[in-house]
């Protein structure tokens, strides 16, 4: 069970360079998203969101049908579907295939799903070289760090950090110019692309009627990873299904815009199996590893299964005032921000990180930008109720529960409520007075005062003033 990472959060807040980096980067993405989804630029935007929501809802609620449909068509294309209950089965399959084919070098394009199951660690443990090829992910791989953000993994790194990492890990001369750093990575990774035995990708969408995998990117590393090596393996959660290729017309319009403010990312690949006999290049073998890893648990909750609609655009992270303060590494799992906050407890159980659903002011900005209209704030509220129930079952949280029971009781007895209020006012109340300290302050009062002054209770409550006012008018 994780405790609220108070120290780490404090450190993040105190690091002004980090705060600047997070705020600027996410701010830029927020502005770009806003510019391309405004009513002037994309009049259909709200309609598209509704459509996307409806399509995902339909797909998720009939997921078994679409999984089988996808399997049929992928297989007809010459691809192979491998069903994996969890990350272990994903890794086992890849290791076994690599062994059979004598494969040593793997190139990977960006996939949060593979981060989720820590695939690289497993592959490396068994002597395979698995190289991340997305620039941000490559930098983090060298630094042995987790992604900071779903879409912009190295958000928190400066060019000087990158210079340090490249010098130390690649043995190159120190280079702080970003364009040059990119060229270094390009040079190193190009060799890997051309020599790799296997390319592993994620999938943004799995298209059921066409048996296709859709991948969006800006760099070209996904195209290279899925074209140059003789084997392509796409790892995808079962929730990535959409019914028809035509549905891509809806989702592609939303994904790039929501993620980075681009009407379309530079490359959109729709891959439907190994290369055909008439084609010159492309992989000879094409595998889609369809993974559960707990998604069926989320599926079982009719109120919260909408969490599976997520298309991993990262818009909720960018707009979240909490994410923008604490940063991606202060979330307990690879998925951070609002989406991380709602799926982590569902995957791991609410008692794993009981503080997580409460780490939100419920401002609702996430729901406003979500392209598939997931009701994140409501799910957080539901999770909070579940946390409390779970805590009580374990005999925890009794004091807070008692406090709220007393409070509720008081709120049902207006005269006592008034009396309580008047007593407080009698002790501390003074017209317009704000307190910067309160003697013997504990708990919530102390917490409040650590950051703000506290208003003293009004000497006379509204109801008392109202009574006096009416009496004065002879009412």
């Amino acid at each position, binding site marked *: 069970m994780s405790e609220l990472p108070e120290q780490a959060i404090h450190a993040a807040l105190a690091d002004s360079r980090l705060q600047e980096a997070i705020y600027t980067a996410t701010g830029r993405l927020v502005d770009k998203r806003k510019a391309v989804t405004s009513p002037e630029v994309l009049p259909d935007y709200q309609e598209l969101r509704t459509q996307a929501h409806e399509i995902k809802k339909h797909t998720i609620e009939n997921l*078994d049908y679409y999984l089988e449909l996808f399997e049929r068509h992928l297989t007809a294309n010459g691809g192979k579907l491998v069903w994996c209950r969890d990350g272990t*089965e994903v890794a086992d399959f890849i290791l076994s295939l690599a062994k059979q084919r004598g494969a040593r070098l793997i190139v990977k394009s960006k996939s949060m799903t593979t981060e989720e199951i820590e695939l690289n660690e497993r592959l490396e443990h068994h002597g395979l070289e698995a190289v991340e090829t*997305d620039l941000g992910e490559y930098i983090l791989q060298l630094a042995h760090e987790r992604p900071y953000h779903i879409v*912009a993994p190295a958000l928190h790194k400066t060019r000087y950090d990158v210079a340090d990492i490249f010098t130390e890990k690649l043995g190159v001369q120190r280079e702080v110019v*970003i364009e040059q750093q990119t060229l270094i990575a390009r040079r190193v990774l190009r060799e890997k692309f051309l020599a790799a035995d296997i390319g592993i990708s994620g999938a943004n969408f799995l298209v059921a009627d066409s048996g296709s995998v859709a991948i969006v990117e800006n760099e070209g590393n996904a195209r290279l990873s899925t*074209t140059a090596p003789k084997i392509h393996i796409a790892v995808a959660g079962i929730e990535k299904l959409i019914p028809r290729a*035509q549905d891509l017309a809806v989702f592609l319009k939303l994904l790039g815009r929501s993620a980075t403010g681009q009407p379309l990312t530079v490359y959109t690949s729709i891959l439907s199996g190994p290369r055909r006999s008439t084609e010159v*290049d492309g992989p000879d073998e094409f595998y889609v590893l369809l993974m559960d890893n707990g998604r069926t648990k989320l599926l079982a909750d009719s109120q919260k299964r909408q969490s599976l609609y997520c298309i991993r655009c990262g818009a909720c992270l960018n707009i979240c005032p909490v994410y923008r303060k604490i940063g991606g590494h202060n979330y307990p799992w690879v998925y951070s921000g609002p989406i991380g906050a709602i799926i982590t407890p569902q995957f791991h159980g609410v008692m794993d990180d009981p503080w997580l659903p409460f780490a939100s002011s419920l401002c609702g900005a996430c729901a406003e930008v979500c392209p598939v209209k997931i009701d994140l704030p409501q799910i957080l509220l539901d999770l909070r109720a579940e946390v409390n129930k779970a805590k009580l079952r374990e005999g925890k949280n009794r004091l807070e529960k008692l406090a709220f029971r007393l409070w509720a009781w008081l709120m049902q007895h207006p005269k006592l409520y008034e009396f309580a209020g008047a007593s407080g006012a009698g002790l501390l109340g003074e017209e317009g007075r704000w307190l910067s300290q309160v003697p013997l302050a504990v708990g919530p009062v102390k917490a409040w005062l650590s950051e703000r002054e506290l208003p003293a209770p009004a000497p006379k409550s509204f109801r008392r003033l109202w009574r006096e006012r009416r009496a004065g008018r002879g009412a």
Partner: protein
Amino acid sequence: MARETILHRVRTALGRAAGQDPEPAPPPRLRIPESGIDRRVSGFCAALESLAGSATVAHGAEEARQTVAALIAGHTAVASNAPFLAELGVPSLPGVQCGIFDRDELKRACAAADFGITSADYALADTGSLVMISSREEPRLISLLPPRHIAVVPRERILANLDELFTLIPLPSQHSSSLVLITGPSRTADIEQILVRGVHGPGHVHAIIL
């Protein structure tokens, strides 16, 4: 085993039975705006240029060929075997390698070449995208490995938007194992959000519309 387990879990979670057909999916609402060919050409060019790609209109095969020649002068290029390129005389330009049908040879050639020259199956006017469907004539690596990509596209192939593309091609798998939309030069902003072009894919994209 895993298959049965997962499908069983899914069905139990949803309260569905095997073989149960769903209600029809919400209908796709594809909207294709009315636009004449000239609008599409200018739209495409403007969109690609806004992404730091370059787009020129050639009035006739000779002009197209000369534009390509000027771009690649003094450099090496790999050209696809698209009949359209052959008609324009691109394969016979100095420095151009063509007629490669072997995968490994193609990989080597593309890795060494300065330019990749292709046609395109379609283009999208609203986003400035090229639509590349992999085939014997049009392999994948030519528009990917060389640092500069030239695409010569007949104007009739320019569609209005994605909706029109998916109306024409409702099932990409029917045509090819790979359909790729190329929307401008390769780019990244992974370091300090500073934009850099030509990370892995071509840093320069030139479209010549005929």
